[in-house]
């Protein structure tokens, strides 16, 4: 029992620790970390059924998802982080007209909207970014989450420059380009928000008239 308890603690720790354990004990402890990852992915695939707009292809990981799953709960190695950031930065589609700022009021609605892409959602219905689930933005909204940093006074603190506007656009479009294995979805890259919706959220952060900057 005691021995198993120790094994459990190791398994419950970081994935890296589990990998170390597997290395030390070799075949004696069962599958290697890679084998375990492959088996987990296969079991997952067999354990879901498509429903509404959510098809089984959502379980097919791209390199970013796969690598970030592997290092979840531990630090991402520098080379992997650089690879992820480079690939995701290259995927960003910037607005053709170079305009990053939309309508902050529309951005506020998008930030409040939690629906979109769930199998229970109407595929033709509203799709939001649910920013408040994780971030503080407008000070009037007290019901905000803390998974991400506070974005209150985002533009005011950083300056209303074209450079910051572009950064905000890129970060919303594909957060993995700036911070590998961030918790934040890739709203543009994954087709969650349109170009105009991203501009509107940028305006919520960067328009001096936005409540975020009051």
């Amino acid at each position, binding site marked *: 029992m005691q021995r198993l308890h120790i094994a459990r603690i190791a398994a419950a720790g970081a994935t890296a620790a589990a990998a170390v354990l597997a290395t030390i004990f070799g075949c004696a402890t069962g599958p290697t970390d890679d084998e375990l990852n492959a088996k987990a992915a296969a079991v997952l695939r067999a354990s879901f059924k498509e429903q509404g707009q959510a098809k089984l292809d959502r379980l097919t990981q791209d390199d970013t998802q796969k690598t970030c799953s592997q290092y979840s709960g531990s630090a991402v190695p520098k080379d992997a982080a650089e690879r992820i950031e480079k690939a995701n930065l290259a995927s960003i589609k910037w607005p053709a007209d170079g305009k990053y700022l939309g309508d902050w009021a529309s951005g506020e609605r998008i930030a409040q909207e*939690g629906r979109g892409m769930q199998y229970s959602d109407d595929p033709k219905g509203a799709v939001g970014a649910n920013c408040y689930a994780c971030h503080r933005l407008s000070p009037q909204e007290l019901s905000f989450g803390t998974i991400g940093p506070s974005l209150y006074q985002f533009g005011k603190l950083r300056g209303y420059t074209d450079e910051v506007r572009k950064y905000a656009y890129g970060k919303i479009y594909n957060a993995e380009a700036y911070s590998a294995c961030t918790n934040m979805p890739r709203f543009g890259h994954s087709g969650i928000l349109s170009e105009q919706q991203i501009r509107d959220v940028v305006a919520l952060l960067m328009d001096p008239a936005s409540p975020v900057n009051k």
Partner: protein
Amino acid sequence: MQNMRRKVLKAGGGMTLYALLIAAGWLKPGDAAAQAWNKGAFEAKSLDEALKGFGAASSAQSKDIAFVSTPDIAENGAVVPIGITSSIPRTEAIAILVEKNPNALAAIFEIPPGTEPAIGTRVKMAQTSNVYALVKADGRYYVAAKEIKVTLGGCGG
């Protein structure tokens, strides 16, 4: 619906509670009321209408009515715990009204002699609103109010 809400707001905000209750009534007394249901009062679309449905003559704000185990904020409006106690002698009935609900009157509890004038239940609230505890005691009417804020959170579920 919107229209009605505005009307309720106006009634609630524009008049004092006391004025609202003046000429407002109470349920018709009747001892064989076991199966009676005050349709007029329950289906009334606003607080003052609901109060008129009771047919009471007048009422007064009272410090002898207390809300117990009743939170200031409800995490979910679908279930809001309400506890009301009355220390007014000869309390005969306690009613719960939620000002901004589509139908303001939530419940009437008739308290026979020997039953303590203290009840606990749970109501639904459509939005942040004043909740009124209306007490009938010795043929007179008393009221207390408490604002309960309704929040929603998480992923919207």
